[in-house]
């Protein structure tokens, strides 16, 4: 009767990544940090760092474009 959370989470991760409307970088960060069986205790910190990195890359890209 116990819920098979690992399978459920994996399925949710797949659903997220395969959804064409979703930003794939964010989907990957959420899936790997929150929906993986080996979720770390500081997964929120890691996800935040990952998102900041992406934001930085976008900013670098736009800055270079402008330059």
């Amino acid at each position, binding site marked *: *009767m*116990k*819920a098979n*959370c*690992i399978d*459920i*989470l994996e399925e*949710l991760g797949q*659903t*997220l990544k395969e*959804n064409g409307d*979703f*930003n794939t*970088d*964010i*989907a990957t960060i*959420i899936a790997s*940090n*929150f*929906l993986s069986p080996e*979720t770390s205790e500081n*997964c*929120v910190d890691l*996800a*935040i760092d990952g*998102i*900041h990195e*992406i*934001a*930085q890359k*976008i*900013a670098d890209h*736009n*800055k270079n474009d402008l330059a």
Partner: protein
Amino acid sequence: MTNFLLKKLEMSGFRAYLKPKTFEFADRKSLAVFAPNGHGKSSLVDAFEFMFSENGTLERLGLRAINNSAGPSALAHYKASEKSIQPEVKLWLKAGSSTEEIIRKATGTSRTRPLALEPLIECFTVSPIIRGHELRAFVERQTSEDRYKDVVRWFDLEPLLRVQRNLKELRKRLKADVENEQPIKEIDRAVSNLTANTLTSWNDDLVLDYARKLASAADTTLVLDRLDGADPAYLELARRCKDEEERLGIEGLQQIRRTALSLYEEQDFQTGGKCIGHIAALETAVSQLKEAVEHENEEKSSAAKSVFARLWQAAEPLFCDQNIDIQNCPVCATPIATSEAGSAEIIHQHLKSNLSELEKYAKSVEQSKLAETNVASTKSSTKATLGALLGILDSHHSNAKSILEISLKKLENSGEWDVQDAETAKSTIRDLIKSVDCKLAELSQNLSQASYCNVHAAISALIAIKNERHYLLLKQSALSDLSDQVTIQSNFLIGKIREIVQKILDKLTVPINSIYKEIQGANAVAIKLELPSDEELVMHKLHLLVDFAGNGSRVQPSGYLSDSQIHSLALAIRLAGIKLFNDKAPILILDDIVTSYDADHRRNICSLLAKEFTEFQVIVTTHDERFFLYLKDQLGDQPWHFTRIIRLEDDNGPIFGDHRITETMIASAWSEGRSAANEIRQAEEEWLLQISREFGVDVRIRALERSYSYERAELADALAEFLKKLNMVPPVVSGVSNRFLISLQQGVIENFGSHFQDTPYGTSSIGDEKVRWREFTEFREKFACPRCGKKRFQRPNSLRKPVCSATACETQFAFS
């Protein structure tokens, strides 16, 4: 299906049980114990709780004697020590095909749970023990957080709910990052610092104006079009700054000045002051040497004019060299021996006597030598300092440098340095100092005003801040877009997880409702376990709600339900949990769970146990006789053992009077050499009660105080009357000497006394008992279906005669 079975339990010196008491579950896995309060029935449940507990204690005792908790010392019977009985509980646990005896001591500080119990404990997702006194608290005092903890653990939902919490946390923190104005404020602060508070925050136009003003202060021709590193005016400014940087700075100029002044300085020159420095010293030394030489010459001439002039001139070498070993006169070559003096020694003596006249000359020679030394020394220091000065002069002082280089060369070539050279050097140094002073003054002025470097640095800092701000805005914009994506995706996930979790919760809600309805009847309100709103998700709550008004709006149960409804709700949740989650260890232990129920509800709980928990091994204790009798009534044909505690003995423990006597129990008593008279009598009464009920005999309604207890005479009379009316006469049993059976057979009933009479048949031998038992069982056999031989009957109200209760038989009863 059963993986585990509690096969046997033995207690000694434990709680109310002093002497060892064994409960066998091998043949009949379930047990119901009736006892009035204070007779030790809960001690049986205590034994299970103690065995299953992690720390070897009971929840109500606590781990130590403090406040209301008695502590683990209360586990032991108060006479256990006095009687030298080791307080302990033994459990024979059957797991699959093997049985293990597990002992747990109830004394000492280390009462660690035996390892052999762990596999069973692991299967208890929900505690298998339900105590009646906890039920109300389970609903009323259990907070949403407690419930959440329980249910989440039961279903192992934590990983899913953790995802929801993490996503919410991510959203919250990301939103905070997006809305964080601190970096922009820091930029404003930097702008404020750079512009000396002229501007308090960044503004493209105002900052450009400010930068233009800075550039214009350095040079009005420098007009910035935009605040950019590629702006032509800025590039020009950068070039000039570089040029400025390449020139000597204040420190360098001051060093030149110091070195030059150490060579030559005119102190208070305007007011006729003196000149100092190495060159001045050199000049002085040269001048002094000249004077000394002149003076020496004068003294020499004066000495030559004296009476010894000629002699002196001739003897000078002798005087000077102190050479007394001379043979001839150095002047006239006259042999000294033939001279007037006659010997060099006499000449020496003569000269000595006239030495005072030569002293002045000697002093002047000495002074000349000193002056010469002084010239050499000052020349050396002048050369060194001049060399040092040449080393720090840059291309901006090339003219002075070339002149001074010549001066140095002349100094190095002894004899070439003259007054003219000194004057040239002095003049050059004077000009150099003037030039340096001018530059220093200019630089000092630039320090307070807008030098190119200063302006360039300020504008460069503004450009850097502009770029940093621009980058920051780009990043914040990207972060904002990503945050929106996180919100969209996390909402999607949270919604999905919520759906999944609610579906899982509904798996529990369905049996809860089913059980609740079974107890409370068809009009029972609907119960729902509901996750809190998204906002509350992180608060680890799970709401228990009921549709009290039946209109779909849900409310907290404790404010609306009656006492028995609250109990039923708690019981339903616990039972549903046990049934749903403990399937690998189907064990249910109920301690006095019907206190607040009326007769109907008690019956409903009995039928619930009979219908829903047939797979379970159930241990029930109750002080409610009506409930106990209901259980017997509904589960009598199931593998249940019914027993009651008739008294509590201090030196022994609870004394049982068993119900549902089996042949095994009677044979066991005989094999142990003890009388089975009580058991036989009880077996007779059990049969009598059963057949009377199934035949539907008429019994007078009893007085209120014993409404559910029948005397054997009453039942026997009613059965005999019933059979008489139907003209049914039980067949005679050969050799019968049992008054009870004879009465029934003949329909003449005596008063047989109460069930609990100590010696119901007086003192009879085991042999007599065996005869009596045989006669009874033979008599009982006569009450069998004439068709299928089964011994269970029923008589619906519409029938006069009972019929076989076996499905698809229903043959009318008749003695064969």
